[in-house]
Structure formats: structure tokens, C-alpha cells
């Protein structure tokens, strides 16, 4: 299998050959940052296009089809429109917090994005408590959302932000516990190690029952965490117009919009990494020839393919289900998901202790 470390190492040696160590490092930082942000923007555009097409097909429509072939340029055109729109200041709003809020949201999302192992040897932030870091940075986003709702001086925004706060804090628990379940199985918190340890079968198969339960809960909680339907109460358009980002315009709104899509990507990517082997090809122990053929497919493709399936499932939720009410949402978490999750964690510990997994 092609290891991206070859490329990165080559760049590293090339830079060090004519630059001092510190300067080479600086250039590398810049390059990595540039690649990351480009990937971030491109993925967001692809997701927006994908969502529009997919929901159009669900709804007996065609979706964007005028700008460029098959409407491919549509998200780009939308992005340009969003960039050149006026930023409107609200009267009596807290201007500083109002402007800071979208940055907090997007920084949290970019940091989480940076943790994802995209392919073999293609990890940016990878250290021994990587999954901890991922959880921590992805939680910062809620601060931005609360600030946005609070500083807008709009009652709808405030209600939306409060809903969002209650929702995200609740579902963070489920996400944390499901991840913990999988950490118990893998025995590591480093994302690259977690992927490596799935070489002989993805965790969803090796961890069987508890892993599957954890996966289902993770997908539910992940959808809730990204504020997407059927859990899109914070921005429930028929109730709160646009929730916490009602008063935002132009690129400030664009940041929220981007962050929402990228959070969906991060959730799908973490699901892929924890349950479906990340970039690891499908390996069946004992079928060596089959495994070898699978290895010929580049790891990046494996990763993107799996993430696409996860994203499709999340979109499928959104375009099928009606929205929950806030008390139903919280009841689902605190009365059902949390107890199931705790029992499931226990089950996983027992299975690991007695070696009952594959």
C-alpha cells in the first residue's frame, strides 16, 4: 500500500537540504496549513453540492443544473456571492462578541478537521491522546454558538443558542462514551494506532455487538452534535427562522455554514476511523489474496469512500425525518442513549477482559 509518509519525508528532506532547520519547519507549517485550509474549503464545496443533489433526488427534483456541467460550479458561485455580501452590524448588539463568534466556531471545526487520519501516513495532528484532543477542540464550537446567540440581541437567536447549548452538551456525553467504548476495544487513544489495529478486521466486525450499538448511538449523537435534521432545533427554520445565526450575513454567516458542513464531515470521518477501519482496506483474516487485491486500492480512496457512505446516511436522516421537540430530544439522550451507552461500555469492557472479540 502506498504510504504518504514517502511524500512528506521527501518534502522534508528537500526543504532541509537548502534551508536551516527552523526555516524548513516554518515552511512546512505553512504548507500544511495551506493544504489543510484548501482541503477544508474544497470538501465544504463538495459537501454542499452533494447535499443539494442528494436532497433533490430524494424530493423528485433535479437539484442545481445550470451553473457549469451538472451544476458543479453552483457552490463556487454561491461562495463568491457569500464573500462579496455586506456584513451588517446590528444595533445594540455586542459587536466584539458578535464578530468573534464565527471565528470560534470555525477554528474549532478546523482543529478537529486537522486530527483526522486521511490516508496511510497522511495525518497532521497525531499524538498519543489524539482522540482526547479531537473531543476537546470540537467542543469549543458550542462557545461560539452561544456567543453568537447572546450577542445578536435577538430573541430568536438567543432561544436557538440556548437550545444548541443544551443539545450539544447533552450529546457530547454520548459521543464521549461511544468513543470511550471503542478506545477500550483498541487500547489506544492515538488515531493512527486505532486505524493500524484494524488491519485484521474493522472494529465494527471485531467488536461485534457492543461496537455495533456504539456505532448506532454515535451516528445519532453525531447528527445531533452537528445540529442537523432531525436534530436541527437550534436553527429550526419554521420555529426560530434561523436560530443563532439569524442576524449574520455575508462571510460571517458563511463561517457558520462551512463549519456545519465540515462538522458533518468530521463526524463521518471519526465514525469511519473508529468503526469502519479509517483508511484501512477491507481485510478478511485468512483470505490473503483477497486482502492483497484490496491493498491495491489506495488508502485515500478507502477513506473517502467510507466517509461518503457515512455522510450519505446522515443526509438520509435529515431529508426523511421530521424535527424533534426540545424535550423529546433531551429525553432521548438522558433517558435512553446515556443508560444504553453506559451498559454498552460495561459490555465492551467485559468482552475485552475475557477476550470475546475477534
Amino acid at each position: 500500500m502506498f504510504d504518504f509518509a514517502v511524500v512528506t519525508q521527501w518534502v522534508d528532506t528537500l526543504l532541509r537540504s537548502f534551508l536551516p532547520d527552523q526555516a524548513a519547519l516554518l515552511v512546512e507549517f505553512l504548507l500544511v496549513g495551506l493544504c489543510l485550509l484548501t482541503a477544508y474549503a474544497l470538501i465544504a464545496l463538495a459537501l454542499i453540492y452533494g447535499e443539494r443533489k442528494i436532497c433533490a433526488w430524494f424530493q423528485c427534483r433535479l437539484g442545481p443544473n445550470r451553473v457549469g456541467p451538472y451544476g458543479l460550479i453552483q457552490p463556487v458561485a454561491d461562495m463568491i456571492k457569500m464573500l462579496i455580501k455586506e456584513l451588517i452590524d446590528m444595533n445594540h448588539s455586542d459587536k466584539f462578541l458578535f464578530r468573534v463568534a464565527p471565528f470560534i466556531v470555525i477554528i474549532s471545526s478546523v482543529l478537529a478537521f486537522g486530527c483526522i487520519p486521511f490516508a496511510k501516513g497522511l495525518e497532521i495532528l497525531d499524538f498519543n491522546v489524539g482522540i482526547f484532543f479531537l473531543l476537546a477542540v470540537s467542543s469549543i464550537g458550542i462557545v461560539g454558538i452561544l456567543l453568537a446567540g447572546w450577542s445578536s440581541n435577538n430573541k430568536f437567536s438567543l432561544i436557538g443558542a440556548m437550545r444548541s447549548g443544551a443539545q450539544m452538551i447533552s450529546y457530547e456525553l454520548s459521543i464521549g462514551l461511544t468513543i470511550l467504548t471503542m478506545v477500550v476495544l483498541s487500547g489506544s487513544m492515538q488515531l493512527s494506532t486505532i486505524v493500524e489495529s484494524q488491519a485484521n478486521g474493522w472494529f465494527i466486525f471485531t467488536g461485534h455487538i457492543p461496537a455495533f450499538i456504539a456505532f448506532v448511538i454515535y451516528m445519532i449523537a453525531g447528527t445531533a452534535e452537528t445540529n442537523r435534521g432531525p436534530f436541527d432545533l437550534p436553527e429550526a427554520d419554521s420555529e426560530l427562522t434561523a436560530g443563532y445565526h439569524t442576524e449574520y450575513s455575508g462571510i460571517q454567516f458563511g463561517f457558520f455554514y462551512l463549519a456545519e458542513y465540515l462538522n458533518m464531515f468530521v463526524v463521518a470521518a471519526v465514525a469511519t476511523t473508529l468503526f469502519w477501519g479509517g483508511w484501512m482496506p477491507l481485510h478478511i483474516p485468512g483470505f490473503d489474496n483477497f486482502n492483497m487485491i484490496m491493498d491495491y486500492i489506495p488508502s485515500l480512496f478507502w477513506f473517502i469512500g467510507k466517509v461518503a457512505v457515512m455522510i450519505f446516511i446522515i443526509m438520509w436522516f435529515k431529508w426523511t425525518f421530521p424535527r424533534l421537540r426540545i424535550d423529546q430530544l433531551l429525553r432521548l439522550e438522558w433517558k435512553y442513549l446515556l443508560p444504553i451507552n453506559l451498559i454498552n461500555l460495561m459490555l465492551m469492557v467485559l468482552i475485552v477482559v475475557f477476550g470475546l472479540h475477534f
Partner: protein
Amino acid sequence: MIDLKETIAALAPEAEFVKAEGKPLEVILPSSAVHDAMKKFRDDKDLLFDFLVCLSGMDWGDSLGVVYHLFSLKYRTYLVVKTIAPDREKPQLYSVADIWATANMNEREVFDFFGIRFINHPDMRRLFLRNDFVGFPLRKDYDMSEENNPLVMSNEESDDMTPVLVTNEKGEVEEKQKVLFEDSEYVVNIGPQHPATHGVLHFRTSLEGEIIKKVDVHCGYIHRGIEKMAESLTYPQILGYTDRLDYLSAHQNRHAVCMCVEEALGLEIPDRVKYIRTIMDELSRLQSHFLFYSCLCMDMGALTPFFYGFRDREKILDLFEETTGGRLIQNYNVIGGVMADIHPDFVAGVKKFIKYLPPMLKEYHDVFTGNVIATQRLKGVGVLSKENAISYGVTGPSGRASGVSCDIRKLAPYGVYDKVDFKEIIYTEGDSFARYMVRMDEILESLHILEQLIDNIPAGDYAVKTKPIIRLPEGSFFKMVEAGRGAFGVYIESKGDKTPYRLKFRSSCLPLVSVVDLLASGAKIADLIAIGGTLDYVVPDIDR
């Protein structure tokens, strides 16, 4: 069968009777006796006039007054009660809002247009017009010049207080101020520009966290004064405005006015016209219910069913367009018949549609009705009891969901509804889910009616010839039809001119919006959306 006249005379000895042939009994009561007599009319077990159909303010030139149309759901009898306010300068009448809750909104409307103040009414504010409006526009002596009411460019302040007239222990009337919203309350304006209000309707909602404490409905953002305009229009001209009331029941509204005028003139309508009108009524009901389904799903956050509903609604609109030339507003009924004969492909088109729909309906139920989130959001939410439904005058699918048998097609058949076999869908739960299911079941019943009619349209004229200028005989006329979302009525008072002296529309949606406060108090914000979605009001019909 009891003698209505005798019973009423026994209960209210002051009553004067006006009896015209072939019309419901008309009673004139002195203003001081109205309240007590009305209470007796409602409670007496031989009368049981439990349903206040229509409450219209009147200006008879020298005096102001009110006309009440009462209906007994049990005995299916009408009673018209008229009363005159004693003083034209400072007209005051006793409110009947404690007898029928629907009178609350209607009396505010009468105050708004005629300046009659109601004693013991809980909330004597204007309903449709701005608070700073000068004068009462439906009075015959109202000065329409622009200096009187110049165009105001400032925002209207919403009042937190409301004036009320109450009788004290000594029986004297005194004016007081009643508090609507305290200063400390967290009041959120849902509307007038809001996706879930389905038009420009304004709910002032007092919240405690996510829980609604009180909803104050603020109507009138698209009040166009159609009733005032009608007073200077000829009858064929008025027809054009009826389509723009409840635009989803455009055909039925027009049907009501046409029938009212035709009955007043004594016109004999050919059978072919009756069939065509009934078929069009049912098609209108279908497209209205499809729009209901679509919008409810969208309000609940399910966006895909929205498109399913609209996909199928388009097919009906295509059928309309073929025959009438209009899609949303058909302008099809005229006095004496319909505008043009049906299109040669119409029958085939309707038959195709009847075949097409049932599999689609299954899709609707699969994607939304059976969904666990949808049922949880709708079941047990916004329960309207049968008593309240009657008291608030809630009719149509929303009334039937509360167990009130209020289908005008059954109570007082018109068109060819007496010749077709169909069920009146009644649910007893009264919650949002029942309101939803009534409409979904009515779609099937409408298809069933269409099936029976479409093959049997008799040959004949599609309209009878009427005089070029239509003058109604002197008198008052009232006609109701079952529109998409309730009983829609037309009350015409004529002095023998080519224009009506007074025309009043019994709105099917005003009672619906008046129950919002009752249903949503104590519920959550999201429930308000579900309640509003299942009540399915159309704002132009409220505001008129």
C-alpha cells in the same frame, strides 16, 4: 318537532318576530335582553343553539346593531337574532363572549368596523385596523377622505394594555384597563414575517423558557376591506374578490356567493352546473389538503414530503388550468352557472388522477404518518375538546377532529352532495394528530365523491341566462358552504339595489386562529408550530 316561535317567545317575551317564507326564523331583541335570552337559547334543551355561526355588525342608517346567526348542531335549525344598539353616538351592547367564545374575536371586529363597544367583553381592542385609525369604516357615514386617515409611515405600537367595559355591583358600566402582558414577561413576536405563520399573521408569544404562557393574536396585516369594497360593487364584480379570501378554497367561496345570490333571485340552476361545481369543489378540497400536508410536514422539519404533496397538487392545478384558465384562483363560478363548459379532456383527466392518487397516498403515510417522531410531535398536542370546538365555532376538519359533526355538506346539502354517498370523517381525540388524520381521510372521501360524479355529468347548459344588471330583492340572505378549512358563509343584506347594502363573510379561519391561545398555552414553541400547522388557517381569510 317543536314550534320554534313558541319556545322562543316563552323564553324571551320581549322578542319580535320577522317571518319570511322559506327563510330561517328572524327575531328582534332589545339590546338589554340579548345576553340573557341568548344564554337561554343556548341552554334550553329544545333549542340548543350551541353554535354561533356568524356575528355581523350592521349599520341601518339611523341605528347600529348586530345580527347573530345561530345554529343548533343537534336539531339543525337556524335562528337569526337582530339587536339594535340604543345610542348611535356611544353605542354599547352586552357581549355574548361568555356564551360563545367565538364572539370574542367577532365582537372585536364589530367594534373595529362599527364602533359598537361590548360590555363585559374581555378585550376591547381593534382587531384588524391600526390602533391609531380614526373612525369606523363600515359605518355608512364614515368619511373616506384622505385627511381623515392619512397614510402613516410609522410602526404601530403593540399595546400591553387593553380597555374593557365592565359592569360593577351597582349595574353601572365603567371603563377599565386590563393588562395583557406584564413588563417582566419575555414576549417574542412570532410573525408577521415568519415561516410558520403561513402568511402575515402576528403572534405575540409570552415565553417562559421554551414554554408558552400566552399567545396574543394580532391580525389585520392583509386586511383589504373586501366587505367595505363590496358595498360599492355589483354582484358579479364581488365574485372576483371571494377567490382572494381563502385562496385555497377559492372555488368554494365563490360557490357560496353564487348560491346566495341565486337563491335570492330564485334562479333555477341546471343539473350540469351543480355537478360541475361539486366536482370542482372537491378538487379544490383535494388541492387544499395536499397543501396542508406539504406545509405541515415542512413546519415539522420534514422537507421531503413537502415536495410529494406539491407534486400531486400540481396535477389538480393542471386540471383547473385546462378548464378554467386559472391555477390558484379559478374565477370559474358565475351567477347562474359557470364561466365556461368543462374542457373535453377534463373527465379523462380526473379519472386518471383518481387512479393515480392512492399509491401516492400510501407514500405519504409511509414517509410521515407512520414516523415515530411525527406521531410523537402530533399526538396529544393541542387538544381541543368538543365543547371548546363548538364554543369557538371551529368547523371543518379541525372541528371534526374534535368530534363535532359540522360538515355543511351533510348538515345542509348543496350542489349534488345529497346525491352522492360519502362519510363524514370524525375523530374524537381533538389533538393535532386527529386534525391531520381527518384531512388525510378526507382526501380519500373526496376521491370517492369524484368517482361517483365524474361519469354522470348530465348534458345541458353550463349556465342560465341572467339579466345584465342583477338586483337582489330587499331582504337578508345567508348561505354557507363547506370550504377547505371549515364553514364559509355569506351574509347579504339588500335594499333592492344592484350593490349589496351590507355584505359579510363568515370566515372559516377566524375561529381557527382564535383557539391558538387556548391550545398553545402551556405547550412548547415547537408545539405552537404543530398546532398552527394542523389548524391550517389561511391568513387572507382571517383578515378579509
